[in-house]
C-alpha cells in the first residue's frame, strides 16, 4: 500500500511536470500582446526609453527572451519555491491574488457540493429502487436535463425570474450597495444573499451526473446475488436496500466523492463570470482574456494538480474502502 502510494505520487509528479511543460509551451506560442501593450504605454511616457528597449527589458524580466525549454526551467525553478511571479493584469504577486480570491470559490464549492450530495444520492437511490416507474423516469429526466442545460442559459433564466421579475436577488456581484454600512453579521448575510443564485446554478447543473452514477451503481448492487439472498431469507425491503444494497453502493460513491474533493478549489469559471463573483474562476477568466501569462499559467497548473490529486485520492480510497481490492 505504502509503496503503491509513493509510486503513484512519483508518477503524478512526472505527469504534472509534462503537463506544466505543455501549458508553458502553449502560452509561449501565443502572441504575448500584453507585454507589447505595456511596453508601448511605458514608451509613451515623457523622457522614456524607446519601445524596443522597453520590450526587451520586459521580456527579460518575464523570462520571455529565452527559448521555450530554458524559459520553462526558469519558470519551474521559481515555481518550486512557490514563486509564480507577478500577475500582469492584477499587478500583485500571483500567489497573493490567488489567496485573495480562492476562499470565495472554496466556500461556494463546499456549499454546493454538500447540497449536491444531499440531493443527488437519495434521488439516485429512489430512482434505482423504483426502476422503470414513473418516478424513475421523472428523476432521470430531471437529472439529464440538469446535465444538458447550458450554464449560461440556466443562469440567465434564474436571473430573469428571481432578479428581474421577482426582485429577490441582485443580478451581479458579491456585495450590495450598502455593504460598507452594515455590521459584520449584516455583511455576512449580504454575501450569503448574493450567493444564493450562483450556488443554485452550480447545484442544479451538477446533481445530474452524481445522481445517475448513484442510480447505476445501486442498480448493479440490487441485481447481485447477495441482495437476492437477503430478499430470499425474508428481510424487510428497507433492510435490504439500506443495510445490504446501499452500503455497497457507497464503495464507488465514496471513491468518486473523495476524488472530487480537490475540485472544490478549482472554482466555477463560467458561473463566477456570469454572476461577476470575484472568485478564482472569474479572476482567471479575466487574466486569460487579458493575456496575463503568469496568472493563467499558475491557474492551469493548479487545476492539473487538483485533477492529479483527485485521481490519486480516488485510487487510494478505492483500496481503503473496499477490502477486496488489493493494490499491487
Amino acid at each position, binding site marked *: 500500500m505504502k509503496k503503491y502510494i509513493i509510486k503513484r505520487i512519483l508518477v503524478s509528479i512526472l*505527469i*504534472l511536470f509534462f503537463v506544466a511543460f505543455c501549458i508553458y509551451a502553449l502560452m509561449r506560442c501565443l502572441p504575448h500582446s500584453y507585454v507589447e501593450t505595456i511596453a508601448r504605454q511605458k514608451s509613451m511616457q515623457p523622457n522614456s526609453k524607446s519601445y524596443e528597449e522597453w520590450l526587451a527589458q520586459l521580456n527579460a524580466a518575464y523570462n520571455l527572451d529565452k527559448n521555450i525549454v530554458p524559459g520553462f526551467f526558469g519558470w519551474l525553478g521559481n515555481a518550486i519555491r512557490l514563486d509564480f511571479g507577478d500577475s500582469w493584469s492584477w499587478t500583485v504577486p500571483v500567489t497573493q491574488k490567488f489567496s485573495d480570491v480562492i476562499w470565495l470559490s472554496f466556500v461556494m464549492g463546499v456549499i454546493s457540493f454538500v447540497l449536491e450530495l444531499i440531493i443527488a444520492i437519495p434521488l439516485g437511490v429512489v430512482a434505482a429502487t423504483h426502476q422503470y416507474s414513473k418516478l424513475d423516469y421523472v428523476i432521470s429526466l430531471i437529472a439529464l*436535463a440538469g446535465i444538458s442545460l447550458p450554464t449560461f*442559459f440556466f443562469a440567465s433564466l434564474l436571473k*430573469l425570474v428571481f432578479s428581474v421579475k421577482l426582485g429577490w436577488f441582485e443580478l451581479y456581484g458579491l456585495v450590495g450597495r450598502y455593504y460598507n454600512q452594515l455590521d459584520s453579521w449584516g455583511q455576512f448575510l449580504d454575501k450569503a444573499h448574493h450567493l444564493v443564485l450562483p450556488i443554485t446554478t452550480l447545484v442544479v447543473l451538477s446533481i445530474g451526473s452524481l445522481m445517475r452514477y448513484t442510480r447505476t451503481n445501486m442498480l448493479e448492487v440490487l441485481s447481485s446475488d447477495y441482495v437476492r439472498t437477503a430478499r430470499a431469507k425474508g428481510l424487510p425491503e428497507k433492510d435490504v436496500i439500506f443495510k445490504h444494497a446501499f452500503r455497497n453502493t457507497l464503495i464507488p460513491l465514496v471513491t468518486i466523492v473523495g476524488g472530487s474533493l480537490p475540485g472544490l478549489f478549482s472554482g466555477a469559471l463560467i458561473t463566477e463570470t456570469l454572476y461577476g463573483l470575484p472568485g478564482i474562476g472569474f479572476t482567471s477568466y479575466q487574466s*486569460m482574456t487579458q*493575456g496575463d501569462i503568469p496568472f493563467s499559467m499558475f491557474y*492551469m497548473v493548479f487545476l492539473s494538480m487538483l*485533477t492529479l490529486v483527485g485521481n490519486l485520492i480516488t485510487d487510494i480510497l478505492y483500496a481503503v474502502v473496499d477490502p477486496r481490492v488489493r493494490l499491487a
Partner: protein
Amino acid sequence: MTENNKYDVEKNVQVEENETYSLNDDRRVKVLSPGAMVAKRFFRNRIAVVGLSILVAMFLFSFVGGVISPYNEKQFFYRYDQRIKEIAGAKENTDFRYLIKDADRFTSIVQATAVLNINKGESQFTMTGNKSPYHINQTAEGLYEISVDGHVIGAVCKSILSLDGETADYDLNYNALKAFLSDQKTFVLDGVNYEVDETGGLLRDGKEIGYVSSYVVSPIGAVSDFSRDFKEELQYFLETNDEAGNFKRNGENEKTQFVYKNPTSGEEETYIVSFNAADSRWVIKRYQAEYVYDLYSAPSKEHWLGTEGNGMDMLTRLMYGGRVSLVIGFIVVFIETSLGIVMGGISGYFGGAVDFLIMRIVDIMFCIPSTPILIIIGAAMDALGVDPTIRMIYLMLILGFLGWPGIAHMVRGQILSLREQEFMTAAEATGLSAKRRIFKHLVPNVMPQLIVSATMGLGSAILVEATLSFLGLGVRFPFASWGNIINGVNDTYVLTTYLWVWIPAGICILLTVLAFNLVGDGLRDAFDPKMKR
C-alpha cells in the same frame, strides 16, 4: 427461371397458405439479426424514442428549415422609424438690427447709444469726443435713420430683408424696409423699379428677388434652407398662435402642430412647434421617417421570433445556428472518435512500451484543463483577428483534439479484454495483418460503446461550443451558432426586455443536448444484452 426455382416458390406459397410447420422446423422460430434486436430494444424505450424524435425535429429544423425559410442567414432587415428631429429654429426679431452705411462713423458704440436713445424716445444724442449731435430720424414705423453732420451713417430696424442669392447694399436694404414698413409700396433705386407686396415680398421689375420679415427662420441639420412660402406660412402660424396665447411662456414647452401644405408636391407635412421661453425661440420639429436596422423587433407575422441585435430574422438565424452547432458537433466527435480508435486500438493491441507511451500521453491530456485552454486560444485568436471561417475550423480541430483521450482509454480497456479471446487467436492463426486484426476484428466489437460515447459526445461538444460562443470566443459573427445567439443576453437590457432573443436559442441547445443524451442512454441499454426489457 429454372424449373427447380419455380417449384420452390410454389412450395413456399403453399406452406404459407397452410400455416403448418413441423415442430422442428427452423422457420417456426423468428430470428432477428443482432442489429434488429438492438433496434427493437431501442424503440421499446419510450424516452429514447422521444429523444430521437426531438433530434429528428432539430435536424429538420436546422437543415431543411434553412432552405424553406424565405430569408437568408446574413440578411439584414430595415424599418422606417419615426423620429422627431429638430429641423429649424424660428425667432421673432425683437432686437434692433443695424444697417450700416458708413462703417467708420457708425461704430458699435454709436450703434448701441443710438438704440438706447431710440428706446428712450430721444430724437438726437451726442457722443463724447464728437461735438456734433447724432440725429435720429424715424422714417417709418420701426425704422430709424441715424445721421451726423448731415450725413446718413446708418439705420436701425427690427425687420430683416433676405435676398435670394445676393447681398443687399445699404440703399436697397433701407428702401425695401422703408417700403415694407410704410404705406408707400414702391420705390425707384438706380433707375430700377422695386415693389414690396403685402406679404413682404420684394419685386424688382415684377420679379421676386427676396422678402422682408420680422422673423428669423434658421435651418438646423441637413436642411439647407426653406422655401419662402414655408417661412411665410410658419410666420403666420407663429403670429396667430402667439396672439392666441397658444405658446406658454412660463418656460414650459407646449407642443403645437403646424401643418404645412407643400405647394409643389401637394403633400401635407406636419411639424411640431414648441416655444422655448429661455431664449424666446420657437423650435420646429418634424417626424422624420428614418431607414434604420430593424433591431430587436418583437415577434410578428414577418419575423416569427422577432429580430435580433443586428436586425436579422431570429428564426432563420436559429436554423442556420443549428446547422453550425450540429455540424461542429459532428465533426468534433468524428475527429475525437477516429483519433481515439486509432490510439486506443494501437495501445490496447500492442501493449508494452507503445501502450505505456500512449497511456502517459492520455494521462497528460486528461490533466490539461480544457476550458482555460479554449478560452486562452479564443482570446489569442481575437487578438490576432482570425477570420471567422478559419476560426471555426480551428475550434473544431482543437475540440476534437482535446476529446480523444477519453475514447482512447475506453477502446484500450475493451481491446485488452477482447484480444485474449478465442476469435482473436483464430484471426492470428489465419495470418491476418495486425492492422486488419485491430480494425476489422477488434474495433467492431467496441462499436456499441463507441456509438454510445459518440452520441453523448455530440451533446457535450455542442454544449462546449455553445459556452465558448457565448463567451464570444467560439463561432463569431457573421456566422450564427446557438451559443453566439444567446450571447446577446450579456446585455442586461436584452436579458430583461427582449426574451425572444435568447430564450429560443437556449431551448434549442437544451433540447438537442438532452435528446443526444436520451438517445445515448437508450442505445446503451439497447446494446446491453443483459437488459431484460
